[in-house]
């Protein structure tokens, strides 16, 4: 028997409710999907094609996903916050269902058949008693097709019979392994100019002068220099000559330092600097209300514990540098960008260059993996600016490794302070959790052009801008500050700390990585204090059955595998934003005599609702685990009072193949439940499970990431 259930067709359909906004049938035997989400390595193209393939019964290889082009594809906002499958996936699923239903009605009428007597195969409806047939592609030529709209609620049939676990080759893997997959960096146009920015030593250096001798060198090497106040770029036809000139030009410039980068260590600054403090209520929204004192309970009937967790600045650190290509002619821009925020950029560039939006077309071209607001937006603005100065030529601007490491907006350094009280029954009756951090939300926007780092140099604007705290549920700093557990009373405080030294914005999970790590490590301290098994202790504080199922699933997975010699295990759990995927992580690690942490095994259990693409979910959570393990064990942006020191990969270590554990991933398929975004769910539980395993190995909670030899030794030696 086929079960039917209703789904909400989602946020994207509200703005684009025609089937033809999402699906086109212009080429015989092929279907093109339009999506406003970009493929940044998370396999969204494959997932969307698979969703369409499943609903329409068309081979995935006949389904193509159009690359985002702001003139054509639907505006679905930013590709971020684990919303691509919930929004775009649900829209494409809904469009496919509506299309198929109406096609069958159309076919029945055209073939003069009862719907139940139609044979539908590969998009062709056939009369089994004659050769008569009609196809999707015939239907798409009718006016009825163009009129098809998607309602807010639709009925769908569950797909229990569909093999959600079968292997599906991802859309671009064949061209990637052959080296034929084209990245933005590979664009070539006739007479194109390559460009690089000549960066000052820090955010606070003003251009004073340049030694005139450099001009002869530039002329001899067919290079052009562009200087506008303190924004400087070099351009030329030969990419290597452009790169080679950078140091020579830098050495010929005199800069004035108008401000120091920092005047103390970051965690002292977080404590000392002025703050906006807001109360966060259950549900995750923040309010400008008085902050109550932390409650105290009598020691006879209660146990009260405290905890602190420090996270340094982390960088996105894409392997390929940020890049953009721009062309300007007769008042119009054509721009190639690998930003997550292509549609927003169209509006912002219109604002920045005082042009109507219709005169700006942005095309998405892939860059190296992107994990939030990195340099992709900045470089797009910079390329556009240069193309306006050097009109009628394509300008391909790439950042250098030093640009990438020193000029991207980082994930903020942060501090979490927690207090909790256990009653006599070892139930947590009081939970206070405070997050202290700079903002995670400085994506450029209309009216906030100073969020483009180069805009300030163009205007010689060295002011420090104060950002306002955001209050929406689970926004940046207070994402996942509200625990999923059923604590009787909570005191949750978001502290936006001002005047911190480094540029910050959205890095994968925003504040959730720190908040979940802080929450789940403290849960472990409490369960050790209560002498209760970590699974049981968490389940004792949960009402959500999906969460309980997930923890039980993780426990079963972990019990199947034999412990490694000298291995210590830790677990952690969260539901991202308390509304996206559920994810539980187990880790087993060893610590060597010289305090090096080796990851031996990892287990991930994930519930992302109905499975759209199982291998895609596995890739996202395993990749997210590895990235978060890298943050936890190795990463930290170093800087002194004058400049950022982590200029290259020697100065910013990330995880390599020598510390990748054996990972077992269990995906729970919730047929009939909405798709839940999965790209960020694993990070927080990863940080916490590593910390928890480490506590069991060392007998002490290491309070500061990264859990490096240096930090562990420093803490253990006091």
């Amino acid at each position, binding site marked *: 028997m086929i079960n039917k259930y209703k789904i909400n067709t989602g946020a994207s359909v509200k703005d684009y409710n025609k089937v033809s906004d999402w699906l086109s049938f212009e080429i015989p035997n092929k279907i093109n999907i339009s999506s406003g989400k970009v493929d940044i*390595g998370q396999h969204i193209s494959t997932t969307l094609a698979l969703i369409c393939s499943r609903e329409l019964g068309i081979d995935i290889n006949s389904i193509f996903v159009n690359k985002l082009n702001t003139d054509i594809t639907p505006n679905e906002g930013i590709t971020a916050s684990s919303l691509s499958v919930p929004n775009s996936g649900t829209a494409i699923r809904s469009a496919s269902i509506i299309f198929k239903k109406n096609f069958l009605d159309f076919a029945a009428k055209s073939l003069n058949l009862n719907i139940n007597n139609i044979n539908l195969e590969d998009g062709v409806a056939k009369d089994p008693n004659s050769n008569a047939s009609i196809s999707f592609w015939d239907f798409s030529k009718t006016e009825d097709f163009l009129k098809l709209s998607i309602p807010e609620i639709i009925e769908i049939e569950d797909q229990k019979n569909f093999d959600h676990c079968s292997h599906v080759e991802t859309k671009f893997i064949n061209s990637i392994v*052959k080296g034929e*997959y084209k*990245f933005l*960096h590979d664009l070539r146009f006739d007479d194109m100019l390559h460009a690089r920015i000549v960066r000052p030593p820090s955010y606070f250096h003003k251009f004073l002068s340049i030694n005139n001798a450099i001009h002869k060198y530039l002329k001899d090497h067919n290079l052009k220099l562009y200087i506008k106040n303190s924004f400087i770029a070099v351009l030329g036809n030969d990419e*290597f000559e452009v790169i080679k000139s950078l140091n020579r030009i830098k050495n010929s410039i005199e800069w004035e330092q108008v401000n120091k980068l920092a005047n103390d260590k970051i965690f002292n600054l977080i404590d000392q600097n002025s703050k906006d403090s807001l109360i966060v209520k259950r549900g995750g929204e923040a309010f400008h209300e008085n902050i109550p004192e932390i409650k105290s309970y009598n020691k006879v009937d209660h146990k009260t514990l405290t905890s602190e967790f420090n996270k340094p600045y982390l960088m996105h650190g894409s392997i390929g*540098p940020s890049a953009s290509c721009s062309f300007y002619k007769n008042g119009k821009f054509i721009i190639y960008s690998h930003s997550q925020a292509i549609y927003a950029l169209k509006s912002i560039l219109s604002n920045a260059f005082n042009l109507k939006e219709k005169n700006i077309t942005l095309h998405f071209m892939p860059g190296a993996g992107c994990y939030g607001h990195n340099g992709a937006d900045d470089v797009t603005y910079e390329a556009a600016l240069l193309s306006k100065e050097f009109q009628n030529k394509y300008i391909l601007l790439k950042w250098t490794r030093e640009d990438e490491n020193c000029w991207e907006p980082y994930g903020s350094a942060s501090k979490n302070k927690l207090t909790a009280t256990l009653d006599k029954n070892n139930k947590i009756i009081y939970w206070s959790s405070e997050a202290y951090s700079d903002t995670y939300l400085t994506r450029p926007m209309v009216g906030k052009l100073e969020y483009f780092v180069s805009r300030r140099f163009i205007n010689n604007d060295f002011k420090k801008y104060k950002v306002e705290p955001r209050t929406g549920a689970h926004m940046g700093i207070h994402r996942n500050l509200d625990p999923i557990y059923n604590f009787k009373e909570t005191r949750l405080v978001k502290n936006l700390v001002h005047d911190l030294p480094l540029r910050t914005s959205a890095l994968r999970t925003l504040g959730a990585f720190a908040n979940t790590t802080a929450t789940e490590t403290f849960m472990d301290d409490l369960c050790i204090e209560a002498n209760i098994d970590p699974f049981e202790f968490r389940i004792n504080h949960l009402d959500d059955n999906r969460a309980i199922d997930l923890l039980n699933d993780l426990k079963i997975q972990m019990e199947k595998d034999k412990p490694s010699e000298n291995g210590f295990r830790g677990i952690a759990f969260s539901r991202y934003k308390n509304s996206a995927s559920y994810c539980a992580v187990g880790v087993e690690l060893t610590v060597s005599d010289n305090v090096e942490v080796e990851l031996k095994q990892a287990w991930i259990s994930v519930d992302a609702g109905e499975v759209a693409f199982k291998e895609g979910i596995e890739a996202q959570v395993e990749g997210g685990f590895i990235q978060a393990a890298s943050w936890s064990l190795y990463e930290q942006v170093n800087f002194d009072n004058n400049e950022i020191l982590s200029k290259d990969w020697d100065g910013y270590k990330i995880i390599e*193949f020598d510390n*990748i554990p054996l990972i077992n991933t269990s995906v729970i398929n919730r047929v009939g439940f909405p798709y839940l975004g999965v790209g960020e769910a694993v990070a927080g539980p990863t940080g916490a499970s590593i910390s928890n395993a480490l506590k069991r190995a060392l007998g002490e909670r290491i309070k500061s990431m990264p859990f490096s030899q240096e930090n562990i030794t420093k803490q253990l030696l006091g």
Partner: protein
Amino acid sequence: MSKTEYILNVNGKSKNIVSSEDKPLLYILRDDFKLTGTKLGCGLEQCGSCAVLVDGSKILSCNRPAIEFVDKEITTIEGISKNDVLNEIQQSFKEFNAAQCGYCTSGIIVSLTELFNKKQTPGKKEIIESLSGQLCRCGSHASVLKAINNVIKLRKNND
């Protein structure tokens, strides 16, 4: 600006090159041979994106002048598959979807091609040594390791 003329042999094809003497191999591959599968990652020989084979051994191409490689057989990711037939590592990467954004993948496949050309069934230590310095930021490592194990398994089965 003084330029020099030399011949390079890449993926079995020779080409006359005119460039400055210090121009790294990477830019010659991308600009003159139009082979863009080899990537510019850091330009500092730290990330492995620009790995190619020279006479069968891996080198990083982003800094070393192309002129060093005259009279050598240079193989890029595009030359690893012959007549559109993938080598066993590429094939295994494909079967295991062993890439996310794919920017680092060329360098990783080139490294492994060198390793598997030299060792029939390399051990864990040799695999890690081969991939040392091949950075990946998306976290495709787990799927890459599965693809490698698959190659080893197939080779053992064929022994």
